[in-house]
């Protein structure tokens, strides 16, 4: 691979990981290159996006490289968000519901592991709205509550049963460790 090809791949990967970012070490492993080489390409990419015709730039806080929008873009982003506001369903709500639907019965801690953020309040909201219900308690230490979705949930998402949920791409590492798709 020549320099431009490698930079193109790094750009592509940095795009799809978005705000999660990627480390030099991850790129080094994926591209089978030395970290020092990767560093050079990252520096080059950073320089290119620093120029004025770009609305995004490469930053590396805490050794994690990621694209972020330049600050002057934020006011437009906010405007765009307000334009879309009325028709979007809360992402937090739909992600929590998706995890429960695909993985029920599931405990709060398991949901939080997948989403990476706390969901105590969200679970309560969803329960009040009657979209999820308690299915009993797990045998794990502390006997945590197990959650599942309700008939109202199926109704809201126009499903006859959970068997109708669309199939997910196969993330092999997760299937091994967690039986996520049981």
């Amino acid at each position, binding site marked *: 691979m020549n320099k431009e090809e490698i930079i193109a791949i790094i750009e592509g990967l940095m*795009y*799809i*990981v*978005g*705000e*999660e970012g*990627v480390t030099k*070490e*991850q790129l*080094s*492993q*994926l591209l*089978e290159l*030395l*970290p*020092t080489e990767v560093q050079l390409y990252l520096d080059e990419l950073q320089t290119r996006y620093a120029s004025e015709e770009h609305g995004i730039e490469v930053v590396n806080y805490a050794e994690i490289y990621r694209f972020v*929008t330049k600050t002057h873009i934020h006011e437009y*982003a906010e405007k*765009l*968000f307000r334009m879309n*506001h009325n028709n*979007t*369903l*809360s*992402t*937090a*709500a*739909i*992600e929590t*519901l*998706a*995890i429960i*639907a*695909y993985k029920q019965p599931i405990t709060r801690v398991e949901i939080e*592991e*997948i*989403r*990476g953020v706390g969901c105590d309040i969200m679970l309560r*909201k*969803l329960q009040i*709205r009657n*979209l999820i219900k308690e299915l009993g308690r797990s045998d794990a230490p502390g006997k945590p509550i197990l959650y599942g979705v309700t008939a109202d949930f199926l109704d*809201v*998402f*126009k*499903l006859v049963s959970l068997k*109708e*949920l*669309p*199939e*997910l*791409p196969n*993330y092999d*590492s*997760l299937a091994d460790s967690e039986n*996520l798709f049981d």
Partner: protein
Amino acid sequence: MTFLVSIDKFDGPLDLMLHLIKEKELDLFDLNMDILVDQYVEYLNNMDRFHLEIASEYLAELAGLLEYKSKQLLPNSKDIEQEDDEDPKEKLVRRLIEYQKFKEISVILTQRFIDRNKQFAKTVSFEFNNADQENDLSELNGNPYDLMKAMNRCLRHVALNQPLQMRSTTSELTVEQVVNTIKDKFSNIKGSFSFIELLKNCYDINEAIITFLAVLELIKIQDVYYNIDENDEIWLKWSNVYE
């Protein structure tokens, strides 16, 4: 004997008929119905013999084909046919051609689908997406696809936060490459540096071994001096070639 394609490989009776027409090299525009009907019957009989379940659609078409054939055998068949708006043979040919068109288009679409699946997009940025956390849930509605997309988002997040366990690829690294890397990275160090320091750039045992071999090489060509202290730690120092 020709190879018998299993019935579950076909997407219905028309698909099967097109297969038989192709196999027997029949002319679709001047279709020999006798051969087609015989082949169709024979095929279904074979499937039946292998105890493969034959869906009702295949039997429905079979009934139509047999009816056509029996009418042909009747002396006054022509009179009966004229009562119909369309000749059954013409109608079947028309249906087969129509179906064949969509089969062909499906091949093109399938390729486009495969290509599209190789294009990935990032998920919506966090700050943009979570500004509506406070939305009340009273007017929730969505489709199952939204759930799939949301779940996919979460799974990507989990995948990215797990350490990569890649198969070792470092064996492709050569000692020479690592020698050069060490020179690049450490040549400006005036004093001693430890071997452990060099290993911080290694991700697996293979890379560590190659790094060790590289150090041996550097010692051999007398680019570095070495010293092993009482804790068995290896200390390295550049000879004056880089000063």
